[in-house]
């Protein structure tokens, strides 16, 4: 054996490791820029199976990959996609949906009523499906003719069609349903799946046989997951990305000042707020959980406009409602009240509370939540609340919240197209998101009734009445509407941002 010098032997180890890495290398990523649209995502999507998926970024990818029966417009009204016409029977127990003809899946199979039935049946019966609760009212799916299905319901359900405007209404090739859908999703969207490298990229390629192919100008779409907001913006500025989703509030001004970038904003469907423990275990046994006046005092002590100014540089509009401004159910007659410390103190006195009232709030361990928590802490202190902050990792926070080991918990909700999704799980007795165990029989009656009413005018009356109760009893405290700030290169045109925060690829062009 020859004796290389020691220095060289060390260097050789590193070099041989490099060679080993090279020999194990993955195929080259398709990064050609020409007709490729490159989008920066804040997270890596989860399973690319619409029935098992749960993430917001996953829904963004599905927008290119999988067509669905309906879409939602900017005013949250349903828009036909794979469904062309729909109607409810007189008793409201059957929804009949006509399907778009001449639609093909990426494997060449035709989309028809049998395929739609197979998909909806899978979504509502697959054990791992997260769509089962969304389609819980569907009793059966019947094929009326090759291009018509009828959904037989167990009870009237005004939320059903909006569920079909999301992942529950996405259609995959029936032949693919028995295989590993997440590994290679075969849908009928404008782009088909090419490859995925977890934590790095998802590559889609244009589907030439799509029924609306002419509206899609890019040959490829690459979704890259870049969690750090500064880095994501740097990638957009350096030209490595054409657009990014979720610009940080602190970056909005500098991006707006950059002539090569365009910042697009819309209020989202959801909100950020504070979940309050009213009756979940021992932690709820405080004046705060038991007396609505104490909660009202807490809310009055918060200056939402200042939060918007200090924490979010005027990018996050304050709210005290669960519905977004784009929703027809939003109450324009209810303004966000200003801060009133004197009234808050008076309410506390009226409730017989001796200040300071000690409380603990869980916050998620990220810089924005920490800042938000500290601002609220300082504000409510003046009104007589001694608020302690407990910073937690999100999974642990969720568990503690569900198990009632909390008094206040700073969380939000991404929002749903239908108003039901933003209130029913939170305000009804036993609701899936009702971690504070709020319970009011009249509230239950109103929200359950609203689920069964198809007429929007009648529905609004029910939601208005429910909101009146919520404004008074405060089962949850709303702070601000969750807005969407996206940034694109100025060379990219045709991007329209809807309140759902999805990236619609139709009409996008690079100049």
């Amino acid at each position: 054996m020859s004796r290389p010098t020691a220095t060289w032997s060390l260097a050789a180890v590193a070099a041989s490791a490099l060679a080993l890495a090279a020999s194990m290398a993955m195929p080259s990523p398709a990064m050609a820029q020409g007709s490729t649209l490159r989008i920066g995502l804040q997270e890596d999507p989860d399973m690319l199976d619409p029935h098992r998926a749960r993430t917001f970024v996953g829904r963004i990818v599905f927008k290119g990959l999988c067509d669905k029966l309906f879409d939602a417009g900017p005013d949250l009204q349903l828009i036909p996609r794979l469904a062309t016409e729909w109607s409810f029977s007189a008793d409201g127990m059957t929804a009949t949906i006509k399907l778009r003809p001449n639609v093909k899946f990426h494997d060449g199979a035709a989309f028809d009523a049998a395929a739609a039935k197979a998909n909806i049946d899978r979504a509502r019966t697959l054990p791992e499906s997260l769509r089962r609760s969304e389609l819980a009212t569907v009793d059966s799916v019947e094929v009326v003719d090759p291009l018509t299905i009828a959904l037989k319901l167990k009870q009237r359900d005004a939320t059903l069609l909006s569920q079909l405007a999301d992942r529950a209404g996405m259609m995959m090739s029936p032949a693919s349903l028995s295989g590993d859908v997440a590994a290679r999703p075969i849908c009928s969207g404008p782009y088909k799946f090419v490859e995925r490298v977890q934590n790095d990229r998802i590559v889609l390629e244009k589907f030439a046989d799509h029924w609306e192919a002419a509206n899609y100008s890019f040959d490829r779409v690459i979704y890259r997951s870049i969690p750090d907001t500064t880095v994501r913006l740097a990638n957009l500025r350096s030209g490595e990305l054409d657009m990014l989703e979720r610009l940080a509030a602190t970056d909005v001004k500098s991006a707006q000042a950059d002539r090569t970038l365009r910042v697009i904003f819309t209020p989202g469907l959801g909100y950020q707020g504070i979940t309050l423990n009213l009756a979940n275990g021992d932690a709820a046994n405080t004046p705060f959980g038991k007396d609505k006046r104490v909660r009202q005092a807490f809310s009055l002590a918060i200056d939402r406009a200042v939060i918007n100014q200090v924490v979010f540089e005027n990018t996050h509009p304050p709210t005290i409602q669960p519905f977004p401004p784009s929703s027809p159910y939003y109450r324009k007659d209810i303004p966000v009240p200003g801060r009133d410390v004197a009234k808050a103190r008076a309410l506390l006195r009226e409730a017989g509370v001796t200040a300071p009232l000690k409380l603990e709030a869980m916050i998620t361990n990220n810089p924005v939540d920490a800042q938000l928590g500290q601002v609220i802490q300082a504000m409510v202190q003046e009104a007589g609340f001694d608020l302690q902050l407990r910073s937690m990792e999100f999974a642990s926070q969720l568990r503690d919240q569900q198990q009632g080991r909390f008094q206040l918990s700073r969380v939000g909700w991404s929002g749903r197209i239908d108003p039901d999704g933003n209130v029913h799980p939170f305000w009804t007795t036993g609701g899936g998101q009702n971690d504070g165990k709020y319970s009011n029989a009249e509230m239950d009656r109103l929200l359950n009734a609203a689920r069964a009413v198809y007429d929007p005018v009648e529905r609004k009356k029910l939601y208005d009445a429910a909101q009146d109760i919520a404004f008074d009893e405060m089962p949850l405290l709303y702070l601000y509407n969750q807005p969407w700030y996206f940034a694109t290169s100025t060379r990219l045109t045709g991007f329209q941002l809807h309140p759902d925060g999805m990236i619609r690829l139709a009409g996008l062009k690079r100049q």
Partner: protein
Amino acid sequence: MLKLILNRLLIAIPTLLIVSLFVFALQHALPGDPFLVMAGEERDPEAIARLRAIYRMDDPIIMQYFAWLGQVVQGEFGRSLRTGEPVLGLILQKLPVTIQLAAASMLVALAIGLPAGIIAAVRKGTAADYTASAIALSGLSIPNFWLGIVMILVFAVELRWLPASGYVPFFSDPLGALETLVMPAFVLGSGLAAFIMRHTRSAMLEVLRSDYVRTARAKGLDERVVINKHALRNALIPVITLSTILFGELLAGAVLTEQVFTIPGFGKLIVDAVFNRDYGVVQGVVLCTAVGFIGMNLLADVLYIVVNPRLRGR
């Protein structure tokens, strides 16, 4: 040497078992339910119960451990709870990325640290020594995250000389790989170079004070020969130990650097997996990292013998 390798491999088996048991127990002790995360924003209790049953999470933890171990022995690491992808496939996907980054960073670290350490020792107390020490200290003090962002802003956003992020396999596009590697390898390597420089310096100083070096000088040998052939060879033993440990750590993933430069390596994989309570992925990656560490230690032992033949008979 063969005996040494065999001995080490035998010791590796119980080590890996202990590591796997420890990681398994530790992550199950973590607060938070993976299925609460997996069930999405809706957190439908029925969905959570179904998922727990499907993944047999209600079995006693020891049963879960042995079931997992049985699978691993057969080369089956399970699937990611989050994406449904096979864990082994994920590991094999990320391993070359991590090795490529680790090797390039190590090359940078050695290229800076070794010469700087030797110069600092040979010219102890001179301006060269102080300069090398100051550079080493700054390499240690500057946070990777900050340096990475600054480099991106300067070289990618302003000058547009290098891509801001990404990973390109070396064999499929060597130039592209080098372009994407320059910044992250420098960021990681500059920090490690400081360690290597300090160790090389102190080891060299000790060796240079030893009798045999004095004898070599007394024989009238050229100073360059004394340094390169006699002193450096012995001084490198602790440096090799350090370098292999550092390389092993790099193989475990450089979380912040991977995050800043969007490199899909082990670091990002394991951090995401921990936050999502993706048990299978955490277990698979930690086991794989432990194997890497054991391999690196073995490599260090072999290198000792290559560098210092006196150790061969031991």
